[in-house]
């Protein structure tokens, strides 16, 4: 039985794909066309009642929320592939801290930017200039804190690549398409961190297999 991941073209499912590649776990994918509204179809809602991607099926087992899925697989396959959780309870605690920082402080701002700048036309709503401006400002403040952290630590949770860094990759990648990669490049340590994590073979493989729906 091979894990099935729904919605591979989109950013949140890509968190799961990177993790599965890092952990050397085989998977299949099932396309979900968000632009056509397939994520709100009754059949999809049976699997993921909040109507968002991803969801995974592993035999009879269904699980959703990308950060829950990556925690599950990183722990289940702790003994193979890249160690994404740290070696001690304390290291795991620090991974959890920075994964929550991504979820609570980083994601809301970058998500709004991506939605309004890249997807508003396709999804049929007007881009809100005020949301874009505020989101970019907030993202900048968060990245200033990352700059300080990454000047003392190679990766967010310490000297090892973890779920916390991984979780940032798919949405941060969209900054290029938005012409906003300067947010990363202007910050020396954030820039070095981004170069490192975005050049991992797992990310290159995921991007190659499942290009983002917004093409240049």
């Amino acid at each position: 039985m091979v894990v099935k991941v729904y919605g591979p073209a989109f950013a949140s499912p890509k968190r799961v794909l990177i993790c599965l590649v890092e952990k050397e776990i085989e998977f299949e994918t099932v396309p979900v066309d968000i632009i056509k509204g397939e994520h709100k179809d009754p059949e999809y809602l049976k699997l993921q009642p909040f109507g968002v991607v991803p969801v995974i099926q592993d035999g009879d087992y269904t699980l959703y929320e990308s950060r829950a899925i990556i925690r599950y697989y990183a722990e289940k396959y702790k003994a193979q592939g890249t160690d994404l959780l740290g070696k001690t309870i304390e290291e795991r605690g620090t991974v959890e801290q920075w994964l929550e920082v991504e979820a609570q402080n980083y994601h809301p701002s970058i998500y709004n930017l991506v939605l309004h700048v890249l997807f508003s036309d396709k999804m049929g709503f007007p881009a809100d200039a005020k949301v874009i401006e505020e989101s970019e400002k907030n993202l900048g403040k968060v990245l200033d804190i990352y700059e300080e952290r990454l000047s003392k630590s190679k990766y967010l949770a310490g000297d090892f690549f973890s779920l916390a860094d991984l979780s940032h990759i798919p949405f941060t990648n969209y900054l290029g398409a938005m012409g906003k990669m300067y947010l990363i490049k202007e910050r020396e340590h954030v820039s070095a961190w981004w170069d490192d994590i975005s050049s991992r073979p797992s990310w290159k493989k995921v991007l190659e297999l499942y290009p983002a729906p917004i093409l240049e």
Partner: protein
Amino acid sequence: MATPVKVYGPPMSTAVSRVLACLLEKDVNFQLIPVDMSKGEHKKPDYLKIQPFGQVPSFQDESISLFESRAICRYVSEKYANQGNKRLYGTNPLEKASIEQWLEAEGQSFNPPSSALVFQLAFAPRMKLKQDLGVIKQSEEKLAKVLDVYEQRLGESRFLAGDEFTLADLSHLPNTQYLVSVTEKGEMFTKRKNVGRWWSEISGRDSWKKVVDLQKAPPPKSA
């Protein structure tokens, strides 16, 4: 007896109370260290050293300093796995995965609209800030959709992640407590049959009652 862990922040903060509930469930002794947010203490250099985003809570035990309430809860649940409520974070990987799913649903779907409503309806008036009616309306609509999903789930399952009370349910206590007890949006919970039943059960736990008492205690006088 183990040295009490330290929790920085006022118990009236929803995020601080999330951690306190978890510590009480796990029978972990703690010391609550005041941070006077009305005086901007959380944005001053001394506090920013332990929490660079200038948010509460922050946490310290003998081996680590941590922030982000849901990360602290996970760490505490794992470190103190063998004491207090041993089912709080699951007893096998599948149970734990279900808890993670609903913890993430809380963090990503429930928290944004419920937090916004708590701020607008419970805190803004106290702070003499103008309410944003547009935000209130939008947040209520979003929260209603989320609670419809919960209503269905809680018709099939006693608690969110399964048959036992877990971190996933616990994480919902702080925002819901404010909405039910000091705003007129409590009906969103109490008028949904399954959500109402679930709210009664989880808020009736001894651990949560103790947190509510801590929230009611008068704030310590600052030096």
